[in-house]
């Protein structure tokens, strides 16, 4: 039986119904039609479903939708400010941090989560932070470069 719940997604309050067993990932994709968050495994192994839950990067396939009741969720759709990309998104574009793009929303959300906690990470810290995000296309070089560049850009902006 579907039950009602309420989640603030990308700043908007969303009220909807979901089965008790429905994951946050399925709720986002199938109930709210926010399909930017990807399902690569549904088992917590690939990171493609990463979103921010109350500011923390989590794999949304392992979170029950109802346990996110009354929480704040940010998905990849919520990062850009109209036509202006988030610095992490921009860095992925500029540095070739994506190819097929299927891992990209998850990687970007992991990176945004990392930079909120640690605005000035080392390469090693970046690699560690995205250690749960599989990417089969890029070999990670350009992903790491992009995240480091985003950190730099965000720092510069703060200073300015």
């Amino acid at each position, binding site marked *: 039986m579907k039950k009602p719940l309420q989640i603030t997604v990308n700043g908007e309050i969303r009220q909807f119904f979901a089965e008790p067993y429905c994951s946050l990932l399925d709720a986002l994709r199938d109930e709210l039609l926010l399909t930017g968050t990807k399902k690569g495994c549904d088992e917590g192994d690939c990171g493609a479903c990463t979103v921010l839950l109350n500011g923390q990067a989590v794999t949304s396939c392992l979170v029950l939708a109802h346990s996110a009741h009354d929480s704040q969720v940010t*998905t990849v759709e919520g990062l850009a400010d109209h036509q202006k990309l988030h610095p992490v998104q921009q860095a992925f*574009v500029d540095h070739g941090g994506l190819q097929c793009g*299927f891992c990209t929303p998850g990687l*970007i959300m992991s990176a945004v989560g990392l930079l909120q906690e640690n605005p000035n990470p080392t390469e090693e810290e970046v690699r560690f932070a995205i*250690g749960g995000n599989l*990417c089969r296309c890029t070999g990670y070089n*350009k992903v790491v470069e992009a995240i480091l560049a985003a950190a730099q850009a965000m720092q510069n902006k703060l200073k300015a």
Partner: protein
Amino acid sequence: MPEYTVLEHSHPRVDAWEKVTGQATYAADLHLPGMLACKLLTSPRSHARIVSIDTSRAEKLPGVRAVITGKDFPNTHFGSGGLKDRYIMARDEVYYIGEPVAAVAADDEMTAQEALELIRVEYQDLPAVVSPLDALKSGATVVHSDLPKFEGYGFAAGGPNVCTLLDADRGDVEQAFHEADHIFEDTFRSQGINQGFLEPMACAARVEPNGRLTVWASTQGPYQVRAQLAGVLGMTISNVKVIPMELGGGFGAKLRLAFEAFPALLAIKSGHPVKLVNTREEAFTMNGPRLPTHIHLKTAVKDGRITAREAHSVFDVGAYLGAGPNSGVGHALGAYHIPNFKLRSYGVYTNKLYVGSYRASGVADMTFAVESHMDIIAHKLGVDPLDFRTINAVKEGDQAVGGARTPRNGLQETIQAVKERLGLPKKLTSDNPNEARGVGVALCEWRSGSGPSTASISVNEDGTVSLLTGSVDISGSDTSLAQIAAEALGVKMEQVIVAERDTDLAPFTGPSGGSRIIYSQGKAVQMAAEDTRKKLIALAAERLKLSPEALSCAGGRVYVQDNPPQGFTLGQLARQSLTSKGGPIIGTAALSSMPYTPVFCTHAAEVVVDKGTGQVRVTRYLQAQDVGVAINPMSVEGQLEGGVVQGIGRALTEEIQWDPNTGKVRNPSLATYLMPLAVDMPQVENILIRVPSPDGPFGARAVAEPPGFGPPAAIANAIYDAVGVRIKDLPLSPERVLAALQGKDTEIKMDVEALRRAEAGRG
């Protein structure tokens, strides 16, 4: 290098914005009104006769809209190559665990899943064979007893499970072995590998009011899907439209018809749109992976040069023939000129999931064997491994296996570049007594992919141009094709629109695979751009009453060479064309094949081996590849880096584990099938060599396949350099390295004599 305005620039991908904002639509993202969910029932048996299937209880479950079994499809075989050896869904027999047996469409996935459990299938077990070497033995269990009757079968030799036997011969091999100073023989084995695309296969289908079928697919080959789908459904090609969706990685796995036929038939039966999305487990148990190979190489050396090669390669193809065996002949020489050869390649059926393509299937396995073998020979001869390779390397004018002449190329430059960057030869040492360090090299070769390619470019009234091709974007190919169009037409990248496409819109185009897009499709784009340019110039010449030779097309304008201010912008010409004699401007091009153009690269790995655990860590990885011209350097580097990391996974951790008795995949998850993570990987270094190819667009060569070939051999060779043990079996796991360090026998056994005998007895 010529001065380019658009090429050799790292332009961001044309689809980057959609992808970083989550707007790019992959097949699983489709939500059509009234859409049903599809789930598949698969065989739990390795080999069995289907006695009966009862779907009645499933059909009665509320929410179930349609159920199909193999008998609902026309009784037609199809195949992924010339040999038609399979049904789209099992009819009378199942040949592996995981083979689709029935499919359900229901209101939601849960109901569909529940319905599967209500389907009763009665099986009668048949004997199964899982090991390819067992399947080769005389008297082995037969996988397909009706093999001789399959359309396209022509190899009545090698045994009842040999579905293909390919050969290539040149010169006098026996004489060369007779005269050799040294003869070397080694056997290698490679493991089963999953392509690891992040996007599980997904597709959807809908019957349109006019009776046509629309299919949304995650595919590299929409025209292949269209043809095969029409075939298995008994429809005409023109009644099927395939819309390729954003591709979340394919690497060969999505070249052909996959599961599209199931939602398609369910859509026909139910009257509703139907979507199928694979689970990750299904990506391991139902999607054709790369299967194990056994490769035996025998090589004659005289005066430091290789004079002959005999190769016997056994490709396990699982239940149905797919990619692989070709490389057993085509790539058994590696990047070397060998005057005499005798090459044999077997495709052998087993009761396992059938083989699929993966980043030049087979070649990667051949490269591991050939490049390990080269190292073994060099060490036994006491010569530097890189020098030995350099001396024997293919040169311009040498004949490849198929007889084509090798054109100008940058192989030697890649060797030189790696040698200089790493300061080879060198001996690495470690301060830690429990560790040893080593360096290993490997050369890789591939050819630029060919096949039907088409392109058209129309000029819009605002001076932009629309580029239409039938190829699916793969790893940024749309961006590179747009760059080729922009360069050839003298417009800015921002002026090129890459049109959305489907099989109704664009003419037939070969699949996006085998490193063919830039080389072949790019050539078609370049030719279409030239055609467009010619038409623009002709129109301007007519309007200016000048000869076309007096005009140039660049900077978004056609202008008089002697008086550049005089002329028209492309927008002006496009508007004028609407009332001109020739009408709107559109340039087109089509080609069916391209000349032989090899691609070469040199790889080097530095490793640390833990002598206590056998653990191998790659500390540095360098590759130099001849790319001809880098259409988009960022994109080229991305291909090279991604390929190497896939290769490192293949070298060290990845392996599909099959139950030796049943052929069931034992590790169907990303937690148990270990692909490289960012934390495990070194920062890969690339050197781009630019020796333009005589035929590619602006001299470009293929890029994407070879980077994945080198790592297993380069790393195996580095392990040997570090600790003096030779592993001929992939992956180079800690267990294997440790066993070898402890002096255990790790040699691969394959009865090559039996193959020679079987071949001698061939009629």
